[in-house]
């Protein structure tokens, strides 16, 4: 596998990972926190209505998890393709 192919493959994988993570980014904030908040508010966990919880707490926790997942996956990908110096 030439240097050029491996760079291209790395980039395609990166795009794929970004797309999947952005899907979750959208789902926890715009999905659970706004678009479906009303439906989710019917479910209660402790004192929280679920839609409200996602909008004010859950989405923020999820964002942190999403970024750290990306860091973890990309560090492994960098190692595998050995393009980092």
């Amino acid at each position: 596998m030439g240097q050029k192919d491996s760079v291209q493959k790395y980039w395609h994988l990166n795009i794929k990972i970004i797309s999947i993570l952005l899907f979750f980014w959208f789902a926890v904030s715009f999905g659970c926190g706004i678009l479906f908040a009303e439906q989710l508010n019917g479910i209660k966990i402790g004192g929280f209505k679920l839609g409200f919880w996602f909008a004010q707490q859950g989405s923020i926790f999820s964002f942190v998890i999403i970024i750290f997942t990306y860091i973890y996956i990309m560090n492994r990908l960098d190692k595998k393709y050995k393009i980092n110096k």
Partner: protein
Amino acid sequence: MELQYLIWIVVGLSFSLYIGIAIWSRAASTKDFYVAGGGVNPIANGMATAADWMSAASFISMAGIISFGGYDGSVFLMGWTGGFVLLALLIAPYLRKFGKYTVPDFIGDRYYSNSARTVAVFCALIVSFTYIAGQMLGVGLVFSRYLEVDIVNGILIGMGIVLFYAVLGGMKGITYTQVAQYCVMIFAFMVPAVFISLLVTGNVIPQFGFGSTTTDGVYLLDKLDGLHKDLGFNLYTTGSKSIIDMFCITMALMIGTAGLPHVIVRFFTVKKVSDARKSAGWALLFIAILYTTAPAIAVFSRTNLIETVSEKPYKNMPEWFSKWETTGLLKFNDKNDDGLIQYSSEQITNELYVSPDIMVLANPEIAQLPNWVIALLAAGALAAALSTAAGLLLVISSSISHDLLKKIFMPKISEKGELIAARVSATLAVCLAGWFAINPPGFVAETVALAFGLAASSFFPAICLGIFSKRVNKEGAMSGMLCGISLMLIYILKFKFGFFGGGTSDDWWFGVSPEGFGTLSMIVNLIVTITISSFTKKPSEKIQKLVVEIRKP
């Protein structure tokens, strides 16, 4: 000890810490001045980014705004944190790889044009000035409220401090003072929050206390919903904004966050691409500590407020009530002369005006915490305002000395000359910001929407497409940026300032408020950029190679 002295001591100590750090980390080269030498540890950079990002508004006003808006306030919580996901995934690593000093650097090089660079400089300056005036005003307010100093003198003291460490230390000085400021700020925010959570719900962690029961066994949020219903307000947990408006405001704030130059440049200061990703993660984690606590504070203090004042005799009000009345943040007008406070959603019968800012500022007194907590809160609010002001100041000075002078007007300027120019422009920028804060133009609040809208509708698409598409060219990017900005400006001028016939919320296009319009003008920018690019010449081989290079870690 007398409260006044205690506040002076705590604030004085924090200021000497910042000055000490500035002297220790003086900038010796332009690389030090613009990007702190480029070797900042990612966790330290995360902390500095968090302090840079969280302004006086996040610290003082946000919890109060959520407290009054309930669910509607979620737009700020999601919008101002979700942008970091976009930064980490779509922008920070690639701009770090690009490896220059400023955002206009990237736009100018990627779109091979000094006109594009100038447009970017123009946007960066407007966004940063809008913001910095607000921060200096915040500094003045804190001084006048806690230290009984005149607002103008408060602003002057703040200007002096920022000037000292930003001009002397550049990005290097700013970075390490921001780390210290983050620690001061988060400690000052969390201590009262923990005590109040303990007081109201018996739970030490505010994030959990928020969803627990109060002493009478009812869930806190259910109780608050009930109180709101009784007084005629919208339910706290559902709010009043339309779904489309919630959606657009949240999106505009997220994209605006990811396009703000003072946040982006922080990622230029780390050693390598993987560190840029790491610092975005740490930054969001540090921000999340404050941002998940703020809505809890909002609920505690809202419940506390309603229970303390509603239908209670005015003469039995606790001491903090009269104290905050003198500042004008609380106003009581006994319309029906019954000596009781009627607090309701009806304009005609409501007798109490409460400024959102009071929710954080008066917290320690409402919870009867010791004086040192109040002193700490003053130092924290100052840290929040100063750290953001310094970050913005650096963007302004580098835009002038690096992007305008070095890259456009005086390419032959020496390293030493550029450093002097950077320091001179930082000084001028502080003076100008101070002037705006002392003579506020009366539309500071409106212009915040403009700052985010501008960042969203100009920088974000140009940067993202510049990385993810090789096809996008100069013609496309420039017309996209100009269309996005103009559309945003027209909308704000029309609905915020009454130009072009003005209009009310019934006339909003697609029901989207000016705060959320950045989302629509960003989409217009994207469409224009892609369409024009596909009808005009491809960028040269050299530029396409640049894009490939940026994508390699």
